[in-house]
């Protein structure tokens, strides 16, 4: 069905947008590298493909005058999802252009900001591209060469969005969301059928304040103390038995 297809594609676009944002955040910092630039490029291309596909699908669905009112409302909702994703993507692309220009990799006098992030972003990019491992095969001057491509792509995206606004008459403020407040706490997905991630419990927050901090650290420490006591008790009991025996 057209709707399910749309939803899957939107999910994919959403995922790629989120990953792209993570990658752009790492730009300019100490986890920046050639690989990162290549990852950015490939994620971007994927995002664009998905965007074009989504757009054609949704415009064809919305142009169809013979759909029912509920269907139309649903398509408008999907349209709002799509356009919000595109806005985010566009802003991130523009920012990556700017930061990329400010932080060229090959110039020795330009230092990367020591943000504390040192790891690589391979896994994020892999998630975006939906592959297991990323292979890097770009040239060494990707950071400058890519920027020109990036500029073209940004103008393409802007054009596309303008066209979208002109052609499709959807009032975004009239759309009602299906999710209520706090919906993100529920672990089932809203649109489509992607895999559900288990929200892990023991996320440690760096210790800054005495009073603050999450309950998780307290929980973990209580667990550790309990286990320690159990082991000590067992050791005492065994020792007592040994002494009794001998």
């Amino acid at each position, binding site marked *: 069905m057209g709707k399910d297809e749309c939803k899957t594609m939107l999910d994919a676009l959403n995922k790629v947008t989120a990953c792209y944002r993570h990658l752009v955040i790492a730009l300019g910092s100490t986890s920046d590298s050639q690989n990162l630039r290549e990852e950015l490029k490939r994620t971007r291309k994927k995002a664009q493909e998905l965007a074009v596909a989504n757009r054609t699908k949704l415009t064809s669905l919305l142009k169809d005058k013979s759909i029912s009112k509920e269907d139309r409302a649903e398509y408008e909702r999907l349209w709002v999802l799509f356009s919000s994703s595109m806005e985010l993507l566009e802003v991130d692309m523009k920012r990556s252009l700017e930061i990329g220009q400010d932080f060229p990799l090959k110039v020795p006098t330009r230092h990367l900001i020591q943000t504390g992030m040192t790891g690589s972003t391979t896994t994020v990019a892999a998630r975006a591209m939906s592959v297991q491992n990323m292979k890097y095969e770009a040239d060494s001057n990707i950071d400058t060469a890519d920027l020109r491509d990036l500029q073209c792509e940004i103008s393409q995206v802007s054009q596309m969005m303008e066209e979208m606004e002109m052609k499709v008459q959807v009032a975004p403020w009239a759309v009602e969301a299906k999710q209520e407040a706090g*919906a*993100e*706490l529920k672990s089932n997905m809203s649109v489509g059928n992607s895999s559900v991630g288990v929200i892990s419990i023991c996320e440690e927050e760096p210790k800054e304040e005495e009073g603050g901090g999450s309950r998780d650290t307290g929980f973990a420490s209580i667990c550790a103390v309990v286990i320690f006591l159990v082991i000590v008790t067992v050791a005492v009991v065994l020792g007592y038995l040994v002494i009794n025996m001998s």
Partner: protein
Amino acid sequence: MTIRNPLRDHGQRYRPRIACLKKAEKVLLEMQDLKTGVKSQPQRLVITTIPHAITGEDIIAWLADRFQVDTQEARSFGSMLVALGYIYPLQDHKRLVIKPDASLYRFQTPYFWPTQQWPVEDTDYAIYLAKRNIRKKGILEVHEQEHYNHLHKWMNHKWDFIVMQAKEQYRAAKERKKPDRVVFDCQERAYWVVHRPPPGTVSAMDYGLDRLIDPNADEAKTPDFYARIMIFTQQSIMRPRVKSSVSLGAVVKYCATYNNHDPFLSKCLPSNPWLTDDVTYWTLNMPYVEIPTKMRVERWTFSFAELLSDPRGRNDFRLFLKKEFSGENLAFWEGCEDLKWGEAATMREKAEHIYKTFLARGAPRWINIDGKTMEITVKGLKHPHRYVLDAAQTHIYMLMKKDSYGRYQKSPVFKETVKKAICPEEHHFTDAQLEQNAKKRRPSLSPIILRQMEQEQKAKMAANVDITQLCRFTTPVPHLAVYSGITDFPSANASPSLPFLAHSPACPSPISVALDSTSASERRVEAGEGEGEGNPAAQAPAGGNVSKSRMALSLHRLLKRGCTPATLFASLSPKCHSAAGTSSHIQPISPDQPSQALPRRIGNFFQIKVDIPPECRIYPIESEDEDEENRAASRGGVGAKEIICPWESLTPQNGTG
């Protein structure tokens, strides 16, 4: 949805006064140098170690060294970098200051820098809050929860997207290694502390209104640009100039006078609410507070404008004027202000009301302005606009300033106020108390409530108005809301036998003001009448008035005043003496003149006619008891003839030809 067409985009998104951002970025880059930059050390957490943490003292030392300034200034500079969001603290993340000790900081990634062209979007904040909600399992801080609810209401159409994106971003973040995850969380949280500060945090992003054009960008040199420059220079040439010695003298005087009253330059008693979050200062200085502070009372002595602009000072001044029986000046001035600043819809009625109350002859609160100003005002009132009473208002303002203000400052009213004024003690808050105060911050009264309070005050004041200033031409008009009865009279016109008009509100005397046809001769006539009435006893009885002329006289008089036929005949009786003659010269008046309700305003519209419509609305003139000299006798009570404004069209009973 953003507006994409740049021609129609009038959104204001450029932040003014943030030219420091580019400079701060340059400094940041210099700090990154491994050899000459700030020394970094690893931060040890329970499980992980994260590199690139810097201590506060290192940052301050580096800044002091680089810019060759002293430690205090380096510290302020460092605090500015933190407040802008380029460096964030790892401990105590809500206070955006640099502490000159071993507390740790870290650099912010360039994506989260506060650059000029990337405004902070609410969508991003909503996504961040949703992510935080997932992370904290529904337990957000109070201000975060408020923001969340607010955004959920106002961005409801995007909420699906926000939830989806939050979940995806959360999962994507988990793909990274543990230390990087921790750093990313810290970075994002620091970014939002700067751009959506929690209560008690001062961030440098509180910059005021956005502007339409980028103030840091160079302006294109179009013909418009040059046209603007030309207009500006032409106007500068035409500007009137003041000698610099004069203007500088004025500046020096102003600074010297207001130095102690400036909360930046000197202490603000009890404490500056913006610094200590304690609102005592504001409660003590409310507009209509009973007991003002000493500083406030001192300001009233600086200039008359200060006194009038402070509502409490104005009240005090009003009280003083009431005692001096010149309250109408201030009331008129306030009425003019109300006209100037009020709504356009009610302007006409306001102008008329002010005219009837203050300016017309026979007005209940007549003010004393010179003839020329009065002419200009009356002429302007034919086509009233906001500034029609400006000349009169200025005149009255100057009068009050030169005359009453000086006396006010020496008066017992003012001295009493000065004695009762309070001088609050200065607060000395400890750090813990300051934090308590910050937590207890609440929004102030809504402007709607303040407005209602103000209007209640005004209504109260209007109800209490005391019309004490009557000139001899004044007649009370019952329909005017301000009139509330007179208990005493100025002795200006006092002669006890002077037939004053009715005091009691129940029976006002007839008035008919015909200003259109007021001529100088009439004025003289009335002046003559008044004066004639002022000397009732002084004149020898007229004596040989021929009865015929007397009759004519009385007829004329009666017609002018308008009487019912009964009194007409009564007055024709020889025993009845009419009051001061209506002829155009001062007539000798018999001492035993009858107590008449003398309408001071004489309707000169009337021609001499014999028959008078019996439904004439004008009071019968009391004709008996010429010995009676009180004018306080009751009149029979038909409604009075109103003061007619000169621009109103003549009604049939006024004009008979």
